[in-house]
């Protein structure tokens, strides 16, 4: 068997997998977590940026002592980052990885056959 033959067969095998219901399910699963998560953190971040640029007086509103809205808003950026990270880690470990590994194992066994 020549190299080009095996290469072209492998590519078409990828296409078969790519069109399969299981892979499309995996991709949808990936998107259904990642897209909203990105929307939330980028939205939250740019809301902060726009407030800082165009609503400085709102940001300067004191909350307690000398800590104002802007400072809390800034620190909440850190909090959301940590929350998204932990949620993603859990989602990956409990759901996505299981599905992805199952598909990978099947592909690798299929290729060896």
């Amino acid at each position: 068997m020549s190299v080009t033959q095996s290469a072209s067969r492998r590519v078409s095998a990828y296409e078969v997998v790519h069109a399969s219901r299981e892979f499309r399910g995996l991709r949808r699963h990936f998107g259904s977590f990642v897209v909203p998560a990105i929307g939330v953190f980028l939205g939250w971040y740019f809301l902060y940026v726009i407030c800082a640029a165009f609503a400085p007086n709102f940001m300067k509103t004191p909350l307690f002592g000398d800590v104002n809205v802007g400072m809390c808003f800034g620190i909440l950026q850190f909090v959301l980052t940590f929350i998204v990270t932990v949620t993603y880690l859990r989602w990956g470990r409990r759901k996505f990885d299981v599905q992805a590994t199952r598909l990978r194992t099947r592909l690798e066994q299929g290729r060896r056959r």
Partner: protein
Amino acid sequence: MKTHDFLASGTVGDPAVNITIFAFFVIVTLIIVVTASGANRSTSDYYAGGRNFKGWQNGIAIGGDYLSAASFLGIGGLIALYGYDGFLYSIGFLVGWLLVLLLIAGPLRNTGRYTTADVFDLRLRNTRVRGAAAVSTLTISFFYLLAQMAGAGSLVSLLLGVSGGAGQFIVIVVVGIAMLIYVLVGGMKGTTWVQMIKAGILGVGTVVLTVWVMTECGFNFSNLLAHAAATSPSGKAVLGPGLLYGGGLSAHFNFVSLAMALVLGTAGLPHLIMRLYTVPDATEARRSVVWTVWLVGVFYLCTLVLGFGAMWLVGNKAILTAPGGSDSAVPLLAYHLGGTLLMGLVAAVAFATILAVVAGLTITASASFAHDVYAGILRGGDADPRDEVRVARTTAVVIGLVAVVVGFLARKIDVAFLVSLAFAIAASANLPSILYSLFWRRFTARGALWSIYGGLISSVGLIIFSPVVSGSASAASPSLITDPHVNFAFFPLSNPGIVTIPLAFFLGWLGSVTDPLPPEDARFARVQVRALTGVGAERGARG
């Protein structure tokens, strides 16, 4: 009012102490590099450290690679002088990691081998795209390197009291030589160990300083802010936005532009992407990024305390008049709190930071040249791995020389700001093509070329015609060309991201949909299946 003896003498602390502590760090790390690195003969050893680092080790090393002099010296200094507006850097530098975590870490680890160009190659199989990716990697690394070496320059002025040329040049040369030994002897494995050690001492140093500052204000953050505002000539204005990016619409847009570059740039930085390949698989790559998020997050929270602490305890005037300017705020804070010894420790941490980041950048740039240009293009993907490593080592030496020279020339520019330019270029030239390659079926080679070169040329071009290079008379951010009569700045923003990032996304789309060649569905299928499942990925020996 506290008296600061350095105002009279021009030096802070004891240069001998500073040098001794730094020399100790260099010697210890060199010993570790030599013992840990092994033979380094194969490309996988030299570029990826044998792909055998654990997720947490690599996570700490990524933190070490990421927390540059810009973060430690630059952001602390910006907050110390301008208060709240400096905080944006901390936030943007952290939040950007989520993009890496969610979209980049796993998929890129699964589809590449060593460099950013690998994923383009798998997706588009086009040598011109590989060349474009190498050009953008080298440009981004150059700007980042410039920032680090500039930081080394200002640190030297502060610690050794030399603002004259010769002394600074010698220290920059020493930094260059130590860095080259790490890279040439240690390869990626040795460099990774240096990053980990550096991240460790940087983390400990930062936390110690932070706790110390908090002790001074009775662990009451509001008190710290009150004290800082009372010391600052701007008063309570430092607690809110507007001091650095206030005044006029273009300043506001400059702020938004900077914010975009920071949050989207991290995911396009080639030296961080390359670090993803030092672990066995995508799961470990993701795990590394999680470790990085924690490390970087805690660090940037601390910069807030350090910055306001320096504003309060060191004071605006002392920072501005110190040799090294705003970058000297944190070392001066250390001097105020713990005297000569703590100052020496912090200075050594800062030097170590620069050294480690420069090493990481050099290995990335040399890998890009050897793997993408030499092996991928000149040898048509068929180079002897030993030759490839030899080319990489030679390139590293050249980069070391360039770094020393440009670092010397750029030593007066504000460091955090220089890094933000590298982020803008990374977000424009790299990120769109990476995302399109992984997730958009119709992406073609022409789209990639338009997007990479379009993003690269537009961002570098707009920087050249911005107040960064000419025409700014402001004391806070002077131009490279200080002569006010030379003014060719027609682009009003000092950060080009707000224009160039959308432009690069648009060009990638336009180039692809107007491409006469059809999109390669088979390659897209392969990239997606590999990216999401990890089938066919380059594994580590123990993976």
